[in-house]
């Protein structure tokens, strides 16, 4: 089949050295498996964004509780805390919060439907090239809506925060 057999080029030990735990020969991706969302299609991107926004909103929630707890120290402390959000950095952070919460909510609604078997189609006889029924545009449209609404909410939020909604 192959006509050409020359140019043997073999180099070894070019990758960073990594010892294997030979007791169990672990090869689990771990969190590395989550970090690259670009390999497996839009549902994996959705999974990645849902996790990322979820963690981000959790961090925001903790910060938010800390922020509102300043009320117990009096109006001055509360006003001083609010001043932190009146900077450009504070505005950008709040815009991210708006986008994350919008996406997480809308995509979460989509996931409620898909994870309970709705909008995924029915099993059938697979035919080449085996496009998966569950990865259809019907359920995927929920992801587009989540992205669009998040973008719209962020734009609206930016307009309100930076120009006072004028």
């Amino acid at each position, binding site marked *: 089949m192959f006509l050409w057999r020359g140019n043997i080029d073999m180099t070894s030990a070019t990758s960073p050295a990594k010892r294997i735990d030979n007791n169990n020969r672990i090869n689990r991706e771990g969190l590395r498996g989550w970090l690259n969302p670009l390999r*497996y299609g839009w549902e994996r991107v*959705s999974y990645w964004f849902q996790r990322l926004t979820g963690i981000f909103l959790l961090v925001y929630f903790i910060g938010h509780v800390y922020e509102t707890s300043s009320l117990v120290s009096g109006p001055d402390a509360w006003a001083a805390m609010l001043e932190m959000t009146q900077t450009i950095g504070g505005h950008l952070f709040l815009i991210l919060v708006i986008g994350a919460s919008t996406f997480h909510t809308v995509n979460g609604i989509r996931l409620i439907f898909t*994870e*309970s078997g709705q909008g995924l189609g029915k099993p059938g006889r*697979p035919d080449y090239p*085996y496009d998966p029924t569950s990865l259809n545009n019907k359920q995927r449209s929920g992801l587009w809506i989540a992205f669009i609404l998040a973008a719209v909410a962020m734009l609206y939020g930016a307009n309100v925060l930076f120009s006072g909604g004028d």
Partner: protein
Amino acid sequence: MNIFRKDKRKEIKNELPLEVSNNTSTSNKGSVKLRVFRVNAVQNPNDIPHFDEFQVPVKRWTTVLDALLDAKSYQDSSIGIRYSCRMASCGSCGMKINGIPRLACYTKISDLDTNTITCEPLPNFPYIRDLVTDFSQFFNHHRSVMPFMQNKKADIPNTNELTEYKQSPQDLDKFLQFSYCIKCGLCYSACPTVATDVKFPGPQALSQAYRYFADSRDSDKSNRLKIIDTNHGIWRCHFAGSCSNVCPKGVDPALGIQLLRSHLLGISKSEKKIAQLQDRSTNTYREEDGEEQIEKEDLKE
């Protein structure tokens, strides 16, 4: 990076076959660089994983498995690789090719649109040697969902009684695609939950649970559902869809998992009617309680 699933029906851009050099000079025309993950984890405890590189001649129809076997035949016979059928039926040659789990025999180099092919063992499977991984845990998960027919009415030990289940094409379609699973492990290696949760059965096992759950010949669904309805069971799936994306046989494990979950949630009602057992020797149907028999002609009426 292209995150979209490549349409396999797409015409190959360059209709002309990759040219193969007719001389043994250093020309790389019509060849690709094959980077193969090497390790001997079992025999050499201190072995350090690394990549070996091979320049391999290719044509338009050359698969990654062809290229690996060429390198093994003519350059380094010690490359560890598992394969058998070369036609995406046995599921032996699963590996991570350019970052995505694929079957080496089912992946044409010309479809990869690159001159460097990186072959690594499937993630989430323990190493054995080079591209060969240990499927023990994977098969344990598969066994754990009881992937076999359970029907107390079946009289298999009594070989004198020839019986068969009657199943309509509609009933068959409910589970047929899930029965096409070749247990190649690609879905298991692509799943982000498997990557972090050892106890999670994985898409393959869960889709097989649905395959038998939906089969009208199987009557014991409660035990199987109890096995997967656990903290580390079906609820750990978050519909990342990666399993269905990499499946080479169109099994669509994500669909099976979500449908199974909808049954567990009570959203979908099981409409399964247990298939009747026909005694072919007497041409009668056996009722589900196993006592009453109905003449076939009577049943038709």
